[in-house]
């Protein structure tokens, strides 16, 4: 077995694998957690952005004099006031070698605006009330320019340019085998075109934070973020040494990728730096919906060839993504879509061409699933179409083609861990039993399954790493320090479980300090389903090294062989005696043995990819799963009701089973939102859904219980054999819902969301 692959045996686990209630949950439930927007500092100022009200134009004039004169206004900034008026979107400090992927935009636009909501001026005042009046006094005159709102139109000859470099933002290709020959010789070829929509993360906590200048002149930001390493970006914008900027991430009120790029950080930093006073910024929900990047809408064309027995022979895929007005992480999102485009299946001949285009729509960037989600609609719709054409069972077609360990993905990456995809298919079907009956005469019921795979851990050529510090206190309690931001998934708590497991400490005696770029070792971003893999392994390594120190010191003191010693709660036990932990620590101090350890985990390595993807390892590993949905369609209203939903994923080893179930049920419901309800509607670049009254999300009444089936192959590249589960569950819902509706009404809806209007149109098309 590859030495990256980790495993664990259940009977050896004491703290890990238990469904422990988290202490952070208790504080949140008591109402005492102080989120980024809850902190109040003496003499604190407030800041707000003036944003473009048109999607495309040239800035002719900006006049801030009236705003400046308003009593209570402390400062008004324009782009010219910023030392380096540029936000560079890359992976902080790590993507020097992939220059072409670097994206850039102005912090405050000075001459050109490219989307509705783009920041133009920053107002700082001594109260929220003054702020609102002051923003309305900033005069901005914009000459409107042509709007490009469709990615295909953006790439057409003569389209107005969103950026002078051209509207093609990124392009990836995979070319493997001979697709044309396979298509010509195949028993069946099915074709389909699928469309997904813009979707907002819509976490409950809008972007917020407070900044101040701390001792030693360190500019400190306490903000809702998934990435404390943005302190580097802030330093660059302000022209400060990186060591003079600190970012603290308190418990975050939801992220889902929407707090991966910077939001309030540069603006709070600028306001603090100029005024030398504490500053708070709180985006409204309107701003959040207008101006923070969205999930890419994509158009996907598939041609899929198979033999008569259902074996896949070829996939020919074209993807076009709407990246909106600025690049952000679009090139990488598109790369994920490309690598995941053929699904968890073995395909010998593959041709994929994917492109992302600039438009004057809201920018698109990271969102749970990160390009690996949209393509589930494409490849799973194709699998069902294939099953129908061949008269085969949808589960059998999937199982016949399921990847196994040792297979290579179209991109060339070899799978190094066990793949339990067939087991997930069996699991959801066994649990589901027979298909339910309709509840009335004008109602029909449908059932479908959808499988997926999703990478966990970042692209291997980003040279990812995470560090963590683990140390005993004199009384035997344990401190863990790790720069992980905790965005609600139990990221910090899981690290405590891992350290407690390895070091034989009771969990109640472990404290995890997290999310501080100055005081906790940097652990990288809480994104890409990477924290359990990266920080989990870092804590595991630090704890393991510390354990070895302690046991060696006790062995030297007692004469017991080191292999005969075990660390258990409160003591080291050996054949001759049991040494209480306080004494163990005293032995260490006397013998100059450190009672703390820093662990750094380095992710797997790979070469930077070129536009033609071939023969390379791209990701550390993948998580596989299958969902099943029963839906009932009202033939008169087009209403779709989800009757039953079952979701199975192989998570390798569940570090906290309740946290795993929470990721699955939460991911599924967020996916059901995209499948059935949500759409950020943009017309000619103007956002028509900038409030939760118009942006419909699932409520408790809209969804059924989500039956999570947690399979454990016991194998993954995370600690104890864990696989990541943050992103994987969001993918299948957007396929399984239209497929279940198709089973009910006999026509597949290929554009999301599956609204009553689309269902009625599909039913009408059947009659026609």
């Amino acid at each position, binding site marked *: 077995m590859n030495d990256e692959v980790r495993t664990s045996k259940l009977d050896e686990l004491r703290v890990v694998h238990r469904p422990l209630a988290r202490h952070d949950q208790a504080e949140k439930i*008591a109402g005492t957690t102080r989120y980024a927007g809850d902190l109040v500092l003496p003499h604190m100022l407030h800041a707000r952005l003036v944003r473009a009200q048109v999607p495309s134009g040239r800035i002719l004039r900006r006049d801030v004099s009236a705003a400046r004169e308003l009593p209570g206004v402390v400062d008004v900034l324009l782009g010219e006031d910023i030392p380096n008026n540029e936000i560079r979107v890359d992976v902080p400090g790590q993507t020097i070698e992939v220059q072409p992927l670097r994206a850039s935009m102005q912090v405050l636009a000075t001459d050109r605006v490219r989307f509705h909501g783009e920041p133009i001026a920053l107002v700082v005042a001594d109260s929220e009330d003054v702020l609102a009046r002051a923003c309305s006094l900033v005069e901005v005159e914009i000459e409107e320019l042509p709007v490009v709102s469709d990615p295909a139109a953006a790439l057409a000859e003569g389209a107005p340019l969103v950026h002078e470099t051209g509207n093609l933002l990124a392009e990836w290709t995979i070319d493997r085998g001979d697709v044309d020959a396979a298509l010509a010789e195949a028993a069946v070829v099915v074709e389909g075109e699928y469309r997904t929509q813009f979707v907002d993360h*819509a976490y*409950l906590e809008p972007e917020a934070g407070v900044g101040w200048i701390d001792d030693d002149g360190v500019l400190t930001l306490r903000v809702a973020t998934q990435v404390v390493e943005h302190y580097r970006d802030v330093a660059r914008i302000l022209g400060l040494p990186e060591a003079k900027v600190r970012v603290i991430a308190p418990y975050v009120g939801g992220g889902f990728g929407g707090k991966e790029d910077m939001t309030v950080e540069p603006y709070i930093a600028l306001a603090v730096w100029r005024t030398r006073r504490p500053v708070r910024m709180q985006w409204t929900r309107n701003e959040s919906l207008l101006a923070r990047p969205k999930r890419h809408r994509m158009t996907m064309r598939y041609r899929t060839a198979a033999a008569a027995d259902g074996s896949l022979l070829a996939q020919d895929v074209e993807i076009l993504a709407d990246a909106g007005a600025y690049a952000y992480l679009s090139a990488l999102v598109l790369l994920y879509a490309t690598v995941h485009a053929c699904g968890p299946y073995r395909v010998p001949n593959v041709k994929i061409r994917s492109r992302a285009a600039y438009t004057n729509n809201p920018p698109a960037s990271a969102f749970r699933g990160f390009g690996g989600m949209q393509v589930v609609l494409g490849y799973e719709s194709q699998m069902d179409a294939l099953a129908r054409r061949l008269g085969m069972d949808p589960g059998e077609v999937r199982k016949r083609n399921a990847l196994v360990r040792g297979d290579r993905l179209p991109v060339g990456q070899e799978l190094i861990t066990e793949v339990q995809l067939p087991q997930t298919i069996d699991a959801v079907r066994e649990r589901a039993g027979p298909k339910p009956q309709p509840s009335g005469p004008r109602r029909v019921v449908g059932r479908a399954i959808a499988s997926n795979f999703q990478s966990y851990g970042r692209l291997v050529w980003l040279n990812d790493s995470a560090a963590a510090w683990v140390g005993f206190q004199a009384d035997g309690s344990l401190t863990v320090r790790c720069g992980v931001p905790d965005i609600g998934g139990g990221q910090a708590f899981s690290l405590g479980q891992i350290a407690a497991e390895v070091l034989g400490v009771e969990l109640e005696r472990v404290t995890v300090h997290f999310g501080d770029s100055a005081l906790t070792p940097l652990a990288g971003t809480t994104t890409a389903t990477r924290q359990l893999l990266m920080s989990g392994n870092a804590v595991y390594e630090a704890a393991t090294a510390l354990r070895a120190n302690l046991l060696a010191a006790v062995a030297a003191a007692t004469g017991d062989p080191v292999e005969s010693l075990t660390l258990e709660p409160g003591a080291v036990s050996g054949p001759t005696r049991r040494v209480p932990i306080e004494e163990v620590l005293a032995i260490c101090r006397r013998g100059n043995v450190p009672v703390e350890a820093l662990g750094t985990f380095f992710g797997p390595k790979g070469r930077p990819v070129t536009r033609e993807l071939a023969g390379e390892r791209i990701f550390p590993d993948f998580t596989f799963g299958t969902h099943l949905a029963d839906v009932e369609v009202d033939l008169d209203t087009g209403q779709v009701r989800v009757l039953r939903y079952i979701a199975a994923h192989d998570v390798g080893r569940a570090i906290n089973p309740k946290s795993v179930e929470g990721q699955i049920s939460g991911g599924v419901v*967020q996916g059901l939102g995209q499948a059935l309800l949500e759409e950020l509607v943009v017309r000619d670049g103007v956002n028509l859904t900038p409030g939760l009254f118009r942006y419909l999300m699932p*409520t408790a009444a809209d969804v059924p*219980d989500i039956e999570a089936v947690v399979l454990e192959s016991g194998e993954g590249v995370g600690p104890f054999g864990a696989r990541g589960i943050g992103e994987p569950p969001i993918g299948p819902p957007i396929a399984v819902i239209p497929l279940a509706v198709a089973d009910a009404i006999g026509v597949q809806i290929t554009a999301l969301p599956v609204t009553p209007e689309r269902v009625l149109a599909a039913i009408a098309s059947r009659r026609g």
Partner: protein
Amino acid sequence: MSEPMTMDITLTVNGRRVAATTGAHLSLLRWLREVAGVTDPKYGCGEGVCGACTVLIDGELASACLVLAAQVDGASITTAAGLCEPDGSLGALQRSFHEHHAAQCGFCTPGLLVCAHALLRDARGRLSRQEIREALHGNLCRCTGYQPIVDAIEDAQSRGVQG
């Protein structure tokens, strides 16, 4: 521009009497957070959709972002923090939320707790899961998928918790 009109407002928040002279235009949400220093009701949308600012005003459910503090002068306000025991430990409904992992990011949790409290307090007879779900429709959660929240309320009900 003239200064905003001010008003003397007195509210009893989670049993604590708070009196202050503040802008008459302040929403109850801003008043609780900025004047009373009670930060568990959250700003999530400002238009009464998300439910993150749900509180009880003299026992009645309300979105604190849609009510002016001045409108409810003299009222008694209960937030999620007010559901704790006098010693600060979790109340029975809160303990059920904790045991069922009914909070992930936790930002929606205070509002949901207040809603669930009123639901159990007012329930006549045993509520079905669907009835619980319908009753929560004014409180959005983006992390949990709602399931553990429904579990927690159902379990609290079966243990005889009445709000």
